[in-house]
């Protein structure tokens, strides 16, 4: 899945780290490897997008701890937890902390790729959603306070005749405000207006 998304690999075993980096690299994924949870957290930036492949047992910060700390930072990157020995209670803890998948070492190549693709797809949906949200918010910021008031009442389903007395202005002025705000938001019907207001 060539994209602008990155697979972040955190494993304290240098060979495993290197091998996974190579395998995913030759398959066309953009990868970044880290030797520990601390190193990843230290380097992490909010605009990083992709998925995280983290070993659950590492010296220092373990995978679950990393997952928790990222959650605290508001990082919603999907996390695939990896373990060298299947441990039901750990898997449970990982899923409760919203892990995207749980893989047992040594894992099957196809399973790894499937897990990564799913996580990246999930991330892509989240990212586009975020982008749409950001765009909507940007547009809404350009409205004047009066236009915002008019929009609130339009979205609530009020007619122009009802809005005018409520705001103490004429029906004609309401119509002008409405036309202007719909122009600013780039919509030509009330349904689209409702959609934007819900972002």
């Amino acid at each position, binding site marked *: 899945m060539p994209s602008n998304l990155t697979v972040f690999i955190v*494993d*304290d*075993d240098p*060979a*495993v780290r*290197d*091998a*996974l980096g*190579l*395998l995913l*690299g*030759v*398959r066309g994924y953009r990868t970044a490897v880290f030797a520990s949870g601390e190193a990843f957290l230290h380097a992490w930036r909010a605009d990083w997008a992709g998925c995280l492949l983290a*070993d659950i*047992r*590492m*010296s*220092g910060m*373990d995978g679950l701890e990393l997952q928790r700390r990222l959650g605290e930072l508001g990082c919603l990157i999907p996390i695939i937890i990896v373990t*060298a*020995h299947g*441990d039901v209670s750990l898997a449970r803890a990982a899923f409760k902390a919203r892990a995207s998948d749980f893989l047992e*070492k*040594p*894992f099957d*190549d196809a399973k790894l790729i499937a897990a990564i693709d799913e996580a990246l797809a999930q991330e892509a949906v989240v990212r586009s959603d975020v982008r749409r949200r950001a765009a909507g918010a940007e547009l809404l910021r350009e409205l004047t306070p009066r236009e915002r008031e008019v929009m609130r009442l339009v979205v609530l389903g009020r007619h122009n005749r009802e809005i005018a007395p409520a705001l103490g202005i004429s029906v004609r002025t309401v119509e002008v405000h409405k036309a202007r705000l719909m122009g600013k938001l780039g919509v030509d019907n009330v349904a689209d207006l409702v959609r934007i207001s819900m972002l």
Partner: protein
Amino acid sequence: MRTLRHNTLHWFPACAFIALYLLFDWATYIDPLHGLNITPWNPDPALGMVFWLRYGKRAALPWFVALLAGEVLVRGVSAGLIITLLGALWLTLAYGVIGEALRRRFSSTDIFDNSHRLFAWVAIVVAGSVVNGVVYVTLLTAAGLVPRAEWTMAVWRFSVGDTVGLVVSMPLIWMLASAPGRARLRERVSNWETPAYLALAIGVLWLVFGFITSAEFKHFHFLFLPLIWAASRQGVYGAALMVFVLQTAIVALVKWTGAVDIAVDELQMLDAMMALVGFFIGIAVDERRQAADDLKHTLRLAAAGEMAAALAHELNQPLTALAAYGKACEHLLAHGDTGELLQGAIARMVVESGRAAEVVRRLRDFFRTGAMRLEALDARVLVSTVSQQFVDALREHGVELAVDADAYAAATAAPTLYADRLQIELVLRNLLANALDAVKGRPAGARRIRIVIAPLDGARLQLSVEDSGEGVSAALAVRLFEPFVSSKGSGMGLGLVLSRAIAEAHGGSLRADVATHGMFRLILPAMAPGAHGVNDAQ
């Protein structure tokens, strides 16, 4: 466990039983009361009882035939035809009831493998014999064969004869009656001690019977010597053999020396007591040995389990890397890329397979040394051998390692351990690897490991491994020795669990101190200074 339920009785064992029974009856028909079947030692019921345990109610008819044949062939129908028939019928019934009581209780277990069962067996035998004696002698008294005045004495002699016969002979016959029992007996008594205690028994018997006319039972207690020897060394099997031999010898000597005037029934009681003491010692010895064996087996299984789990974890890392490299190579080849990337990947695959092989080698080492080979080892040599293996790693991470054996600098005695070299090396390697991991997190210049070798009282030696790492918190210390509590994904992987198991198998211990720096104490038995020729003049 012996199964007694589905044995069908064929004519051959029945005939063999009758023949053996008659032989026993004839051989022990000594000092009878009024020419009746009332003798001081009556081991034939023991044979019958084992027969009953094997075949159940089907043993009744052969036993009845044997009892009747005994009256006819050995005693010449001394009680008259009717009473003989009635007596034989009663005895068959009474023995049958005792046999059934034993069978109910022991149908699926061995009688002589724990003290509760042995006690139950003795209780059934004694109670059964007394009741049997009362009824049988009353029958004979009613028929006028035993004078009324002698009723008590006759009951006493009959009951003692049967009880002693059963108590003394039944264990050995029971052991001989089954193939596993025979194998077990053979295995237990086939060592030099058997002829030795038998020789001692002969000596003591000679002593007892050589002086018995003048000294009565004065020397009888010496007979406990060979018995205790047999029971404490060979368990209940040795005791059964010894008790039977002693009893046979005593009866033979009584018959041979004609010393029937010495109260034979009292001698019998003493012998029965001796038998009980022997069996209870034997059972105690067997139970203790069984418990020790079970524990050892459990420990070994646990260690092997730990080892296998650690191995699975250890092997998973190189296997994961190998699989990923392999897939990457496949992909590279499919795209015609045979450049540096491919060569690098292949070279790293070779390294990884070497790492996997190293894990397997360690496992093999462990199982090869699973049986401990104890030898005298100088702890300083041991420590330097192990730390040698860490030289590169220590240098790479800038870790300072100090070995402190000052306690031994002035003394003439060396810090000598009595231990299995490979296993203790494994433990030390594990501790050092842990210490190394612990100090890696410290800033450069503050990475120190110190190994202190010091003597402890009670011929023990302490090897402490200190590091300047974060140390063990109280919460972690509790769980540290549980499997897989360590947070490490790499490293030695053998785990502290296994290290502790090894230390404990040596009679030592391994513990972690709760401290602000790492502190592990390995305590092992030391060799006493005198044991290898170095002796302190003071």
